[in-house]
């Protein structure tokens, strides 16, 4: 059973990823000071919770927009279709990182003015900002799948049997015949969400010319990476390269920054391999 599991690249990398995180957690529990450990734990949980929410929002947004586009495209009045396509292209024209950055600034302002306080509201807001600039790729994928099946007899053969358009699109095309493609894309979105969050949080934490700062937003891996302690820890890696006798100290004295960097890089690499393995296994 385990042998079979290890033969599948995606499942193997899920195991490697979990194992890596567990090893890092145990090491940190043993050797990292308690306040720093609390920060790393909070940063890790916040980052992955937001990334999961991004996945959910992206899927919902993309599915709804795909259905709307399909329905507008079929209708005789093309104005709603053109308007929605224009809006999507407008979002597409904004670089993801810039769009998310401004979204975060807006959320930061809401937090500072006291309009939102609870993490239960802040997390979804941050996740929505990320998914707004990620979901369009997902819409493209779903529309490609629908277009592919519309070209085949598949679509017309079902429609002339009286099966409703909604069922053919939602059940037969997207669910039955595209869910593997969709899941593969969701894994990539999960990785992209972690990467974008870390990048934006890092930029915000390093400093913007606004009142928004890392204090106002939940602690994430990106903001932890921007801390002065992390920077020193990471710089010590360079020092260890020229002074090999210092390598041992990295895992005890510079654990905070190295753990944060490790969790980001190792998670992104693992997710990349999981997505690739999944695509290979299902011959996508």
């Amino acid at each position, binding site marked *: 059973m385990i042998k079979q599991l290890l033969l599948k690249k995606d499942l193997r990398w899920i195991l490697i990823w979990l194992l890596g995180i567990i090893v890092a957690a145990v090491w940190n529990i043993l050797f990292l000071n308690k306040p720093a450990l609390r920060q790393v734990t909070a940063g890790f949980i916040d980052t992955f919770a937001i990334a999961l929410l991004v996945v959910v929002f992206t899927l919902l947004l993309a599915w709804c927009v795909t259905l709307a586009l399909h329905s507008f495209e079929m209708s005789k009045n093309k104005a709603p279709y053109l308007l929605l396509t224009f809006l999507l292209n407008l979002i597409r024209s904004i670089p993801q990182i810039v769009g998310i950055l401004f979204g975060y600034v807006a959320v930061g302002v809401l937090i500072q003015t006291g309009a939102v306080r609870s993490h239960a509201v802040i997390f979804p807001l941050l996740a929505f900002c990320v998914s707004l600039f990620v979901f369009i790729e997902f819409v493209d994928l779903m529309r490609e799948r629908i277009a592919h099946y519309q070209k085949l007899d598949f679509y017309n*053969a079902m429609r*002339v049997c*009286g099966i409703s358009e909604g069922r053919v699109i939602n059940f037969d095309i997207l669910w039955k015949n595209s869910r593997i493609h969709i899941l593969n894309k969701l894994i990539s979105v999960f990785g992209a969400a972690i990467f974008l969050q870390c990048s934006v949080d890092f930029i915000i934490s390093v400093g913007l010319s606004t009142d928004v700062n890392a204090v106002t937003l939940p602690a994430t891996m990106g903001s932890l990476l921007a801390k002065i302690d992390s920077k020193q820890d990471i710089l010590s890696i360079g020092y260890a390269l020229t002074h090999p006798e210092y390598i041992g100290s990295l895992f005890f004295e510079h654990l905070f920054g190295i753990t944060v960097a490790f969790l980001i890089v190792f998670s992104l690499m693992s997710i990349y391999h999981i997505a690739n393995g999944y695509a290979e296994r299902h011959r996508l």
Partner: protein
Amino acid sequence: MTLERFSVRVKAGQRTVVSAANYGVFQDEVTFLFGESGIGKSMVSKAVYGLLDPDELSATVNDKPYTVYLDDAEVKEIKKNSFFVFQEPSSHLNSLLKISDQLNEGSLRLSKDEAAIMERLWQDADVAAIRRILDVFPKPYRPSGGEKQRVLLAMAFKKIDVLMRTTGAGGRSFFVFDEPTGSLDNRYRNLFLGLLFEKYAKRPFTVMIITHDYSIISELYANYRPLLPRIHLQELRRKEGAEVEVVDFSAQDYLSWLGEAPAGSSFGVSETPVLNFGARFTVFGRNLCLYKDPAHTKEADLEINKGEMVYVKAPSGVGKTTLAKVIMGLYPAQKFGMTLCGLRLTEKTPKKIWSAKIWGKKAGMVFQHADESLNLAASVKETFDGLPLSEKLTLGRLSQVLSELFDGKITQAFLAKKVAMLSGGQKQRLNLLRTIVLATDLLILDEPLNGLDFLSVKKVLSILDKKRSEGTAMLMISHNEEIFDHFVDKEHVYYLAEV
């Protein structure tokens, strides 16, 4: 007569794809192998010929591992002396090489018979027209399916010519023609048979023709009677799961059934019109017209009354399927007029009218390729979900519907089975049942007998008879002229042609 039996088992991973214990090859004689689509005819023939990839599939032939079988001197001799015409002409031809070059690859260049073969297979074409076909690359699909099929047949005939020139009477051969007439109409099919038997009469060689075309039997009995002792009709039938067996197929069964096939007018036909489709229509810039005679002199509206079956004939590619799709509102015809169950429809009628009032309610259509028409990722049961039926299709009722075309008890496991796991013939039966179960006034059937074995053909025609006697009007499109000429009254035959 030397009959060589092969036991063949092919596995993909842990799953047995096909297992045939008694695949028979009659040395230096001609075998026609019938059987439903997807049952394993091609796979077993490829295994015996030595074409399977041992890295992809694990196979045994006569209990020998496949790599050992491939090393056998006889298999090597067969591969040297023979040719395998693949079912799908597009995938057989190399898209990067001109057809003329492909006709002269390897040992084929030793044949001096190319011009004569091409002239026989392209009977009406002049030298320049044949040259135009030879001078092109197969992609992007410049030659038609029928032309590509004839190119492959020409290759096989060249190889036969080489065999006749280079080996004496003793050289072993195994010419496999996998659905060689799938893209040809009856005229070209008969040209192929004529040339094959002409060469065979000069120097016998081993031939295996895999086909679903039962009407070939009538052609054999009509024109090749002297050769009948050297012709064998066999059928591959499913025993259980992936296990299949080869049985003798009785030509008399087919010929006598054909003689007994009921004519369309014998049913309680009413004068209630279901469809009236104007004789002339324009689609994709082509002007098409319906006639009542094969000479195309009597232009006529297509009229189908309640309980009538109408058969539309035309050579391949003229637009029979296009006509069906125009009636169903799937193709935007530039000019047409029709009345369906009292509803007047023209090129100006919005598509949503078909969706709201016609599809699944007044008319249904069975598409010709079951593989493309069904959701392969869905289960057998899910195939029937979402249909606009007057009463819910309970499991009991669904089992009853399926048992009309599927043998044995309809189990839960079968209902839960993915459509992709069914054989081609089973998919076609499912494809038919999905539409037949609807209570529509008009049923359009595009090649409903595609990929079916004889038993299923009989069952399908019996079900259609029943539907017709209950009042369903039917529009039939099929290249299986022999069967439908018997099945449909002559008054109800229309001829489609481009104006």
